């Protein structure tokens, strides 16, 4: 199946250097038409050969076609023309002629037949495009194509690869291609490859070594095994780091979810069961922003940080004024009332927006992962969330410790009457505190929109966990919340591999329940007569 790559590369190398790419076929009888014709067959094998043919034809539209085919946009109209669909949403699609590239306006999906492909062909296409790109002027393309060729090399390509490796002026490309070659050699039980790969952490390389290890040549097999063993320790270490990272990232999510609660519950003593729904609102704000700014998910996301805070804070104020202020000093009643509010907010979203989940796009710069080494890479979106969590925490700390508001809040919570007497407007403080807590919940929602569903139930999935974190950390203590959140996250992730996700969660819950028995006031309790309540 891979043989075509050899021809592809060969003619590419012989055919043209990056600059001299223009060799249009003679006008009139367009050979391209014939080429595309061969694509419109049922059997995927024939399609595969057709693709090979296209690659070998040094037609400069080849890459376009391959790309369109890969994206499933290369289709055939009832009138037999081959077209490229520009946008396949809705019932009628704008198309352009695949050969001439002229726009043909809209066509109904009923009169179009897509040229279907499957994963095998998708692979083939990717590799083909990669090969084409190997000598593209754009260095990024060359690099990605080099990455792409890891494990895709075959006998023929291997030979032709050698000169390319030598000529490659970009050493990343050179190194990758070298690896690709080594992988090929190792898989065919060549010592050279095994040696070249020993010490490499790259999964693909280990796949190759694994194969070599099960090869018939005992010497090579041993060498391969040795090579695998040599990185075992290193891998374990990486795995440990990975688990820790997982734990911390889960932890930071918990912290984000709980920190707002730590304000409203811990500082004000208000049990806000609608906290989760405030998070939900934050998430929906993100979605809204992305609807308002189509095509710029990144910008929308950044903007929705203040927006989410604002929306949640306003709703929070409404809740405080509308309900909580009437329930002063009756925490359990507040619990019930706010629970009612949470139900209302959920149903509101269901009826106003939709019971279905909403799509929140992850911006480019947040998707994918940060490669530490070939075995360890940290997923970017979670990295951002972690940073965000710390940022929010720091900001809150600042507000509570350094600002007038923080001072007043602490004064009011310690001795309302006294604070009043000193001219602090307690009601105002209540409003602001609650708004702050709610706003933070909104921020958490914005972050969550990048990790999980944006739907009416988003809040419910986090409310219990957040309460656990706050109680575990010690009510009224932001540091406690931070420590509790992170440690619970890590515990959970460490348990998960051997206990399984469900059991891990249960164990953590039971652990907290027992812990509260031992230390009713959490990790960092408030002491003194004031706290004896």
């Amino acid at each position, binding site marked *: 199946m891979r043989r075509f790559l050899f021809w592809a590369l060969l003619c590419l190398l012989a055919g043209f250097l990056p600059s001299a790419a223009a060799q249009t076929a003679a006008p009139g009888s367009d050979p391209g038409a014939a080429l595309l014709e061969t694509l419109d067959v049922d059997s995927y094998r024939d399609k595969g050969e057709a693709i090979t043919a296209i690659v070998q034809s040094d037609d400069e539209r080849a890459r376009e076609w391959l790309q369109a085919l890969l*994206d*499933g946009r290369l289709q055939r109209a009832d009138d037999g023309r081959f077209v490229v669909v520009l946008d*396949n949403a*809705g*019932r009628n699609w704008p198309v352009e002629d695949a050969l001439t590239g002229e726009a043909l306006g809209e066509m109904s999906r*009923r009169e179009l037949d*897509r040229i*279907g*492909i*499957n*994963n*095998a062909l*998708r*692979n083939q296409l*990717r590799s083909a495009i990669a090969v084409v790109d190997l000598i593209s002027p754009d260095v990024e393309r060359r690099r990605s194509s080099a990455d792409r060729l890891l494990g895709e090399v075959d006998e023929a390509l291997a030979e032709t690869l050698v000169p390319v490796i030598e000529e490659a002026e970009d050493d990343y490309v050179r190194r990758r291609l070298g690896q690709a070659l080594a992988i090929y050699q190792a898989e065919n039980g060549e010592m050279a490859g095994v040696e070249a790969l020993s010490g490499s952490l790259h*999964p693909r390389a*280990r*796949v*190759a070594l*694994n*194969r070599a290890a*099960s090869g018939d040549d005992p010497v090579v097999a041993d060498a391969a095994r040795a090579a695998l063993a040599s990185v075992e320790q290193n891998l374990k270490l990486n795995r440990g780091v*990975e*688990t820790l990272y*997982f734990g911390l*990232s*889960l932890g930071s*999510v918990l912290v984000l979810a709980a920190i707002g609660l730590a304000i409203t519950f811990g500082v004000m003593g208000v049990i806000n069961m609608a906290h989760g729904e405030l998070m939900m609102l934050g998430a929906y704000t993100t979605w809204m922003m992305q609807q308002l700014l189509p095509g710029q998910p990144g910008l929308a996301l950044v903007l929705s940080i203040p927006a989410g805070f604002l929306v949640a804070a306003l709703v929070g104020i409404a809740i405080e004024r509308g309900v909580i202020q009437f329930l002063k000093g009756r925490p359990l009643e507040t619990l019930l009332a706010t629970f009612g509010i949470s139900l209302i907010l959920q*149903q509101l979203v*269901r009826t106003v927006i939709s*019971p*279905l*989940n*909403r*799509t*929140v*796009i*992850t911006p480019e710069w947040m*998707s*994918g*992962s940060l490669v530490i080494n070939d075995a360890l*890479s940290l*997923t970017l*979106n*979670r990295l951002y969330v972690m940073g965000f969590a710390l940022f929010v925490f720091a900001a809150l700390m600042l507000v509570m410790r350094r600002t007038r508001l923080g001072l007043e809040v602490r004064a009011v919570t310690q001795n309302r009457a006294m604070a009043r007497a000193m001219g602090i407007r307690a009601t105002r403080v209540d409003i602001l505190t609650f708004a702050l807590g709610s706003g933070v919940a909104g921020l958490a929602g914005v972050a969550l929109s990048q*990790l*999980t*569903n*944006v*739907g009416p*139930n988003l809040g419910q*999935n986090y409310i219990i966990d957040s309460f656990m974190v706050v109680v575990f950390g010690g009510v009224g203590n932001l540091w406690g919340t931070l420590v509790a959140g992170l440690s619970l996250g890590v515990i*959970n*992730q460490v348990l*998960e*591999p051997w206990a*399984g*996700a*469900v059991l891990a*969660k249960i164990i953590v819950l039971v652990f907290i329940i027992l812990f509260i028995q031992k230390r009713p006031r959490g990790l960092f309790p408030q002491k003194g007569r004031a706290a004896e309540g």
Partner: protein
Amino acid sequence: MAKSTRTVLSSRLVSTAVAAALMGSGAHAVAQENDPIKVGILHSLSGTMAISESTLKDTVEMLIEQQNEAGGLLGRDLEAVVVDPASNWPLFAERARELLEQEEVDVIFGNWTSVSRKAVLPVVEELNGLLFYPVQYEGEESSENVFYTGAAPNQQAIPAVEYLINDVGIERFALVGTDYVYPRTTNRILEAFLKDEHGVADEDIMVNYTPFGHSDWQNIVSEIRRFGEAGKPTAVVSTINGDANVPFYRELANQGIDAADIPVIAFSVGEQELSGIDTGPLVGHLAAWNYFMSVDTDENYDFIDAWIDWTGDEEAVTNDPMEAHYIGFNMWAEAVRKAGTTDVDAIKEAIIGVTVPNLSGGYAAMMPNHHITKPVLIGEVQDNGQFDIVWQTPSTVAGDAWSDYLPGSRDLIADWRKPMACGNFNVVNGSCGGSTAAEEAEAALAE
């Protein structure tokens, strides 16, 4: 919403008010010949399942209206009786009882989750009603009063895995699912199937279960990643349910697993689920269904257009359970015509063998085991939230109530035709009612 429904609701409002006054004595009217035929719809319109089920309710209402426009059935109009079990399983049983006892409906279309079906089952059997169940499920059941228009495992899971093995050349399988009965059973069937039929080794099968709405997939995905590094082509067979899917696919994408390396084939991810996902990173992942919105037939396009007009939403999507209802409804209507009455027992007789067109250009027939014949399609996710059909069974597959790969049910069959009329006939000891497991156990006890 169809006006017929509205009137019903208001009338129910009155009757319930009366009920309130008289401690709930529901007033009955004995069904007259010219009264409308009552079609009960038992789908959650609120609560967690509303996401999936509310569209099915709309579907049935649409079908009913279409039927009425076409002159109804037996010269009588159809009338939708909608109730909301609110995603609460005991409430499902209660509502079913209400439909059959209070509203005296002639047929019920409803349920999504297995548990809700299990809750309703005894009621439907006790009151001898008709239930059409439109969702793919774990099988291991055949009730005289229930018609399973969704896929049984052998109509979805097994062909899908065969496709992976034969066409994609997969040798290593990660069976990942939500921890409830459908994934459990499906995965057990698949395990048995892979080992017995294809000699897949134990270490090449990984099974993992997660709770509902699981949102933190980091560990499991990295486990899958490592599982895939053993040097054999690997695939994930996903029976992950509903909300848990978004974070799962997100994590896959972020950890750099794309369909080309480790394809995921899902049994519970359809067009509707995709409509809530950023499909960019999913492209190339697979799903196995008996219908896709992208099926290229005129019946399908007509259905889609009708649906879009009914909902008034250009973006509205159709999915497999909707087709199941489409088929089930037409089968029932056909059976009513054939029997010339809506009497339950008559229909049960008449409907077996009824054949109606499905939306993928073929025909669906009601089998004696109350399951239907379906084609199996494999689709690859595209960036526009649709599936590109890459494979399809040459002919339709008949639903199998009892799996051939589970020891308990290997020798059970269901056949509701007289004289057998048995949902769990044991072909070994030729008796109705249970597997040889019974005798084995008795033997064990005897010792």
